[in-house]
């Protein structure tokens, strides 16, 4: 029953995303054709040609038929054709996806590990110097726009010091798989991952710290102390185990933010992932491409949430079903 609800929830999310995608070109100002063809093509079309194009795209059929066609198309992997690249959207996106995933995966792992560790240290020394200084630093860093942090990193590490390349994801001319290639990829990952992770770490640190503080105020902590549990065990065994739940939730919610952050940060580094693709789509007014990316991003976030939900019972016996 619980799983039924979770799954139906995500199906609903996906359905909304598809409906939005279908509706947007039809309710946005102007003709839907505006959103499917480029302006110069449109300007030179005759009325007969237009009607033919409408028929070709199925735009003359009733809305319900169009919608069914669209949805079945999506499930077959057909997200339309990119005007900018002249290729199927799904293929373009899939080609770019690994780079974005690489970026996000590292940023997620790093920010989760570092944020949790620092947050717990802040809670251990709560009220102390480390706690206060980390709060100040984190509040400021967490408030900075991620792309700005990235620009500063480039200025410092590339322009001024010349330590790291600031462009692309892989060295040009290197054979994929070779040592030179892998080193090049790693070099080019450092800055974008750092910028992403720095901003994300701030929110995880704050969550970890407050989750620990809340857990430490619970009655079972007093009782554990009354049992004679030494303070470090109270902290790490009893409090941390309970604080893990909100931390985990926050890390998982952070995936949604990371998607956004990754998209923006790629444009700073001209990193060949989905984000740069979006920017190219925006510049070329390639609506098919943007919509396709949106559908896939939704799918990705839904999958991440699903995995998160499946992970809960491992951490919290209260949501386990017997």
């Amino acid at each position: 029953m619980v799983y039924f609800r979770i799954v139906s929830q995500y199906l609903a999310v996906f359905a909304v995303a598809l409906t939005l995608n279908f509706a947007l070109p039809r309710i946005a100002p102007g003709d839907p054709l505006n959103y499917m063809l480029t302006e110069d093509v449109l300007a030179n079309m005759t009325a007969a040609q237009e009607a033919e194009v409408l028929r070709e795209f199925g735009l003359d059929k009733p809305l319900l038929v169009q919608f069914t066609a669209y949805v079945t198309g999506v499930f077959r992997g057909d997200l339309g054709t990119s005007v900018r690249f002249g290729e199927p959207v799904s293929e373009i996106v899939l080609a770019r996806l690994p780079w974005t995933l690489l970026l996000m995966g590292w940023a997620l792992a790093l920010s989760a590990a570092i944020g949790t560790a620092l947050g717990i240290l802040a809670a251990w020394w709560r009220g102390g110097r480390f706690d206060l200084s980390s709060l100040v630093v984190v509040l400021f860093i967490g408030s900075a726009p991620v792309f700005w942090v990235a620009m500063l990193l480039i200025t410092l590490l590339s322009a001024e010091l010349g330590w790291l390349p600031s462009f692309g994801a892989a060295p040009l001319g290197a054979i994929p798989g070779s040592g030179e290639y892998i080193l090049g990829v790693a070099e080019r990952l450092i800055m974008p991952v750092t910028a992403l992770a720095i901003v994300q770490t701030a929110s995880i640190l704050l969550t970890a710290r407050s989750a620990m503080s809340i857990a430490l105020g619970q009655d079972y902590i007093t009782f554990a102390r009354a049992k004679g549990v030494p303070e470090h065990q109270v902290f790490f065994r009893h409090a941390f185990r309970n604080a893990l739940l909100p931390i985990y939730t926050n890390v998982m919610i952070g995936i949604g933010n990371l998607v956004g952050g990754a998209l923006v940060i790629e444009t700073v580094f001209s990193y060949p992932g989905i984000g740069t693709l979006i920017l190219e789509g925006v510049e070329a007014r390639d609506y098919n491409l943007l919509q396709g990316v949106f559908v896939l991003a939704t799918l990705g976030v839904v999958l991440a949430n699903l995995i998160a939900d499946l992970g809960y019972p491992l951490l919290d016996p209260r949501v386990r079903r017997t």
Partner: protein
Amino acid sequence: MSDAAASAPIRRFLAPPDTVAGRVQRAGLVVIGVMGTAVLIGPFLSPYEATEHICTPFQTPNTAHPLGCNDVGQDLLTGILVGGRISLSIGIVTALLTTIVATLVAVVAAYRGGLVDQIAMRVVDVVMSLPFLPLVIVLGAFFGASLPVQVLVITLVMWAHPVRELRSQALSLRAAEYVEAARAMGASGWRVTTRHILPELTPLIAPQFIRVAHNAILIESSLSFLGLGDPIRKSWGAILFHANARTAFLTDAWVWWVLPPGLAIALSVVAFALIGYGVGDGEDASKRAQPTADGMEPAEAPDAPEAKLAIRELTIDYDTSPGHFRAVQGASLNLAEGETLGLVGESGSGKSTLAMAVLGLLAPSARVTGGRIMLGDSSLLTLTPNAFSRLRGKRIALIPQSAMNALNPVMTIGRQLIEAVRLHQNPSPAAARQRAVELLEMVDLPPGRMGAYPHELSGGMRQRTVIAIALANQPDVLIADEPTTGLDVLVQAGIMELLSDLQRRLGVTILFVTHDLPLIAHAADRLAIMQDGEIVETGEPEALANFADHPHTRALFASTPSIHAPKMWTRPTIAPSVPPLLDLVDVSLTFNKGLTAKLRNARPVIAVSGLSLQIRPGEVVGLVGGSGSGKTTAARVALGRYTPDAGQVLFMGREVSADRRRPIHMVFQDPYQSLRPRMRVGDIVAEPLRIHGIRDTANRIRDALAAVRLPSDESFLSRRAASLSGGQRQRVAFARAIVTDPKLILADEPTSMLDQSIRMDVLKLMESLRLERHVAFLFITHDIVMARHFCDRLMVMQSGVVVEEGEADQVALQPKHPYTQALIAAVENMSAPPQVELKPEAAE
């Protein structure tokens, strides 16, 4: 003093300026104020237009252009000032819109409940699961880049985020007793929402606004950075977009071009974060205080060498701002080996503070400022934290106040038992496990429950587990701090029996801390009565009951009559021919049977089944039962708050419908919750009149307050509920109930949240209202002793069914139904010892 300590804090958005949170919040306000002023006035003072090309491209800073110029010769400082207007106004306008939408959705969902709520929350979940930046980009791309579009698009993706929190707050407000009270007075949904829910919700809306503004500024800058901002009116994000597009950081201009807009964004976002600082955090940030050694006198020989636990002249202060508050004042106690000492006191008397000091587990703000605590011949207050920790659980153990929450929710009870064993002994894993099983058996729990998590156990079973853990290492002294509070009467009796049985078998010394005199008077060897931080009297229960010196002790015993004592209130019987005021005919009500319950996977609950009940004018009827027996639901049905599935509810022969002016009023259990803390006494008492459209209220308010023996001068009328004591509050609640001259008042446990010594006063007040105003009462209670003394007739409810009814003395003294018999047996085991002048009747 005790009442002030227990009163609900009034929530405000801004913390007081002398606290850390208050200072941080004000710093945020100052930063955002300065930035707001700068971007408002700055562009007027600047000699240039932001779009003017007035200098050489990449001009370095000089006096004319303090930040230099960009690639097309526009003044960068002017650009930032103008951009700030865009960024900040988008942030604020979006936050306003979003907060309004979210509040509306949250309040409607919470108030309507049921299907509306379910649907609203599903929609919220869906919107929150959409990846918002890609969505914003797609929407922005389709609808064009302009400021209104940006505002709308960000609102569209953000509105769902605050709904969750606001709704859960609105839900708890809707369930608040003062809202329930207003509903009971006949207030409409609209009135309740606008007069009670929204005003209380406002302090919670503000942080949501701040949070959205914080996020909106960041999202806007991301959008503009991707080139989706308004191309003419450039925000901070858009300035960075241009800087990035021109690869400004490869020239020297980056310092002036890239740093300032990013700093401006970060600063304004930080400012919003600071304003929202500490809201909802609400925990104190300091470590547990260790007992300090100051004020320790050189050890003199303990006066009672055989004492297991000796407390000498113990004084404990709480640091409060300003000054400090003395919780315990020169308290001395001796516990002999194997003795059970009952430490009895009302809320705020310092009894729990004293107990926690013995365990070395005082709250961080508490300090021992004098005295000694001796366990055998070791002085506890001079121990190092580590030494104290090794001693806890081994020589002194605790059965804590809230057994429901004392077990770690993510560990099986087996692991928690084994942990307790292994902390102080060094057994093999198998031996530790064996010992844990024995401990479970000792408290009558099946060993099969070793693998159970706390949430899988009932309250009584959890309390038994906690006792098993406390006794795991055969401690010398056991501190039991209100160990049965909050448990059902029968469960309570079982726990008490278990404790005294274990005490007999193990010979442990028990310090039993409680507010419940009858509960402990039977079980304790000696009692110590505590009031305002001082131990006012010590002695054997029988002696105290009969020859107490201290007025407080006498008041405590006087307020807890025995079940067998002569009935305290006897009234002339009312002829059965008198038509009843209230007539419930075969009423049944089942919860969780609709569609939404199915969606929530909730099982139907039969709350009341086949209930018939009559109350005649001037009569006092007691409805007695444990938690979940359906007695409160029955009252709400009588009030017309719930419509029964079957049966009739007649008031003076006419059907009670949900919307009629009600000649019935209700008084609730907890006067701290049934009166909104921020309301003034005058408005509280006037509310029923206003609900019924009566304008001229002054005289009636005065009469009602006089009837409950409260002053009715201007200064009292303008006092807020938060500043009243518990007893005063309950009197105000009664004044509110009688102001419309009802013929019947439903009193739902009106004394159970009050301190023992003022319970009798409330019952006396009810009797005077009955005599002076001819009010009949339905007295709902779990306390069969009080019910027997106060009521004319009793009805005993169990699981929604009346199992026994009749004259009060007949039901209480010759119970027929097993459930009633069990209730009586439970209180017989824990009733105060007989007072000499009262001749106890023989139990049958």
